[in-house]
């Protein structure tokens, strides 16, 4: 049987100022009918260029030098733009990353869909509209007729990604290609999108290429995997074989980096940390923190609602939740980058929430922050050495020589060369820059560091290195961490305790391993069941919530989860559950999970209102 898509010896060059550079080098690949191929590789490995080449969208300065791309036996590279136009969309469907940017912001999505539909098959507008509505409902967008009139900015990221998929499958293509289908989406939404994608391809019986840097996605949704590095195919193997026994060294490195191996000693250490911390005042006590933002129309958006937690000396606490849950807002309130509306924040027993800014500035050396995007968090006109030295110079009294020695010591600590001090941020890689960010944060010997998604902008292997670094530093320096992340595998690897945030409220707090192995709150269960691990043998027990996270402006009454929760009873719509200790070391805000005896039962209880 001829392959659906066959790429032979494809070489693509980038024509730059300093001569040509190969971005794809002799790539071979095949996709059969109904097969799902996963292409993994880190940024710069050429995976996106490969997709663009197959689509025939390559623009100068990129240029195909040799090779063939055959779709159902037909050579695509020599086709005219006009012939390609009929193939694109009809035979080949493409859905790229960053859904919001891929949709035209000034057209309603209905128009965009009907345009695509009518471009290939002339039809009356009302027919096209009906077909567009059908497509939207097939990708799980509720109330499609109304949504057709929505502009992209009125839709959530997940909805935009669904709309993009609807565009890509509008003409039932023979081969669908998706680039990073879940980047920028929350875990719960990612799982929904991926399931949707798999179902769509099954119904259409078409081939699918998934390009991703996330090995876990490949493990669960693909049949074959292609590993790319520096424009070359490193390994091409069935998924089961690949994850069981990768042949190539690079594949093994990738797998090891992606694996969420938890240090065995973290649990013991966490007990020790808690014992040590019990006598003295905790580093940070957040008590009934509330943050409201005014929004248009004079209404208030409650981003953080009644959040209380503590962090002990040298303890790593994770704050997890979907985007819009308010986790970043909590971090910014603690650092006084924004002012809390209500509640107190005590640092080593002293209330810092009401300190005047000038006095709080003296405390800055004690509380530091590491940011999400390493490039964006560096002043591009400041040398690395100056960036690390700045907090020391502004908050400590040290001679110039002492400061330089300190910077060198810090560079050693985070694993960078001393020569880096004279570099500018654009001369470094993302991973190196994130190390600089860490060095800058630990420069003043702080007691607490707030990490705001420190790994989400990084490649798999770099992410693993940074996590190892953070773990190592924490053990050596005993700094308390507040680790804000939606990367749950990173949390499991690094943090002693985990707090789960939903719509600005804490729903569950507990020791990380216990919470991950047995989440009690329905939201924690949904969140954790959608985490994919890079292991095709992992059994997912789906625990799905309905719909998406509601807007924090219109919060549901009672328990904010009740409209999405499969365990909800009529009490849930009225009573706001308190965060209570439900078993040793575990606090929980749910009416229906009552005590230690009831552990995560899967049946829906008829009536379990605890009647508080």
């Amino acid at each position, binding site marked *: 049987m001829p392959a659906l898509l066959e790429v032979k010896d494809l070489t693509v060059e980038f024509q*730059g*100022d300093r001569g040509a550079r190969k971005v794809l080098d002799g790539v071979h690949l095949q996709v059969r009918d109904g097969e799902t191929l996963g292409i993994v590789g880190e940024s710069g490995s050429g995976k996106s260029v490969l997709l663009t080449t197959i689509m025939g969208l390559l623009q100068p*300065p990129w240029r195909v030098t040799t090779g063939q791309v055959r779709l159902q036996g037909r050579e695509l590279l020599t086709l005219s733009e006009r012939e390609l136009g009929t193939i694109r969309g009809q035979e080949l469907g493409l859905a790229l990353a960053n859904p919001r940017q891929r949709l035209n912001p000034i057209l309603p999505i209905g128009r965009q869909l009907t345009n695509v539909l009518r471009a290939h098959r002339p039809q009356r507008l009302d027919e096209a509209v009906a077909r567009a509505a059908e497509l939207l409902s097939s990708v799980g967008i509720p109330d499609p007729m109304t949504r057709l009139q929505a502009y992209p900015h009125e839709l959530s990221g997940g909805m935009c990604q669904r709309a993009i998929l609807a565009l890509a499958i509008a003409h039932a293509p023979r081969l669908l290609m998706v680039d990073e289908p879940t980047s920028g989406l929350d875990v719960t939404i990612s799982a929904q999108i991926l399931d949707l994608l798999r179902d769509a391809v099954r119904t259409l019986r078409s081939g699918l290429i998934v390009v991703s840097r996330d090995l876990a996605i490949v493990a669960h949704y693909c049949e074959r995997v292609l590993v790319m590095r520096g424009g070359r195919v490193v390994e091409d193997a069935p998924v089961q074989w690949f994850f069981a026994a990768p042949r190539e060294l690079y594949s093994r490195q990738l797998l090891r980096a992606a694996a969420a191996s938890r240090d065995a000693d973290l649990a013991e250490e966490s007990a020790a940390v808690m014992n040590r911390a019990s006598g003295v005042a905790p580093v940070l006590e957040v008590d009934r923190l509330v943050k409201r933002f005014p929004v248009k129309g004079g209404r208030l958006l409650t981003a953080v609602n009644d959040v209380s937690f503590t962090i002990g000396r040298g303890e790593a606490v994770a704050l997890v939740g979907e985007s819009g849950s308010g986790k970043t807002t909590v971090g*910014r309130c603690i*650092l006084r*980058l924004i002012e809390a509306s209500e509640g107190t924040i005590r640092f080593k027993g002293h209330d810092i929430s009401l300190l005047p800014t000038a006095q709080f*500035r003296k405390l*800055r*050396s004690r509380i*530091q*922050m590491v*940011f*999400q*995007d390493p490039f*964006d*968090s*560096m*002043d*591009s*006109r*400041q040398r690395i050495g100056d960036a690390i030295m*700045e*907090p020391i110079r*502004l*908050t400590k009294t040290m001679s110039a020589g002492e400061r330089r020695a300190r910077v060198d010591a810090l560079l050693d600590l985070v694993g960078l060369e001393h020569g880096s001090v004279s570099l*500018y941020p654009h001369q470094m890689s993302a991973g190196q820059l994130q190390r600089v*960010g860490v060095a*800058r944060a630990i420069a003043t010997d702080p007691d607490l560091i707030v990490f705001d998604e420190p790994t989400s902008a990084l490649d798999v292997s770099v992410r693993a290195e940074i996590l190892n670094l953070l773990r190592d530093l924490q053990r050596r320096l005993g700094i308390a961490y507040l680790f804000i992340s939606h990367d749950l595998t990173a949390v499991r690897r690094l943090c002693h305790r985990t707090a789960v945030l939903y719509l600005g409220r804490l729903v569950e707090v507990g020791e990380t391993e216990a919470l991950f192995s047995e989440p009690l709150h329905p939201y924690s269960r949904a969140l954790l069941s959608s985490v994919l691990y890079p292991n095709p043998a992992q059994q997912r027990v789906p625990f799905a919530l309905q719909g998406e996270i509601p807007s924090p402006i219109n919060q549901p009454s009672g328990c904010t989860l009740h409209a999405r929760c499969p365990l909800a009873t009529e009490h849930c719509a009225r009573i706001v559950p308190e965060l209570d200790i439900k078993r040793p070391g575990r606090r929980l805000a749910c009416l229906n999970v009552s005590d230690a005896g009831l552990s995560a039962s899967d049946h829906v209880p008829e009536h379990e209102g605890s009647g508080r």
Partner: protein
Amino acid sequence: MRPLRDTDLWHFARLRPGMLFGLCVIILNVCLAAFGPAIAPFPTQAPVGASLVSPNGTHWFGTDVSGMDIFSRVMAAPRIDLTIALVSTVIAFACGVALGVISGYFAQGDRAGRIASTLIMRIADIVQAFPMFVFALALVGLSGPSTKNVIIALAFLNIPFFLRVTRGTVLQVRSRTFVEAAICAGNTSLRTAFVHVMPNALAPAMVHFSTTVGFSILLTAGLSFVGAGVPPPTPELGLMIQVGAQNMITGQWWTALFPGLCLAVTVLAFSLFGDNLRVFLDPTNRR
């Protein structure tokens, strides 16, 4: 400036005729401003021959109604025109950028900051709404025509443009996380604004600088033309055009044409240079 050092300005200009032309004319102007009066063939502020001689071997651009050599006066003009334009633009740049940084940085700050920011913008609105020529005439009416008054009037006029352009960029830069990182490092608000935000928000104002110099030359000439600029008989393009315009009607075309051409070429050169500078400073426009 890092971008200037990263890539050679000359390499960039060589491939762009507009940039090259602008650069050459600007360099010529600067040289004339420095040496023009010294190397001019005739004295520039005294009659050197008969009135209204048409262009010939001795007086290349002819003479004006009072018998002064137009070629020599055109050569001497950049000293006064370029100085006025440069000084006024530098003042406008400094004030405009500083105010722009303050109004942009504090636009989303605490109450006092927001009030200051709004106040600055409203004052800029008022200045921009005020007709420039009326302002210059009023100034001249108060203290007589002088170079200083022209500079003040031009600087005042240009401050709001630099302010707005800087404020816009500052608002963008302000939302980047390195600003929060700087605050976490212990910077005060003012230090963050001027040490970290300002250098990252200068590029548009710098591009605007070159264009503004060109248009300031035009405006200087315009002010002289209506009698609100430098006093005669200073060798200044606007004055020469004004004097010459009366003779144009009677057929002595050279009196206003040559100064006018010089003015046009100079303004065009600064404009072209400014436009190309924007491309040069914007890394996304280059490969």
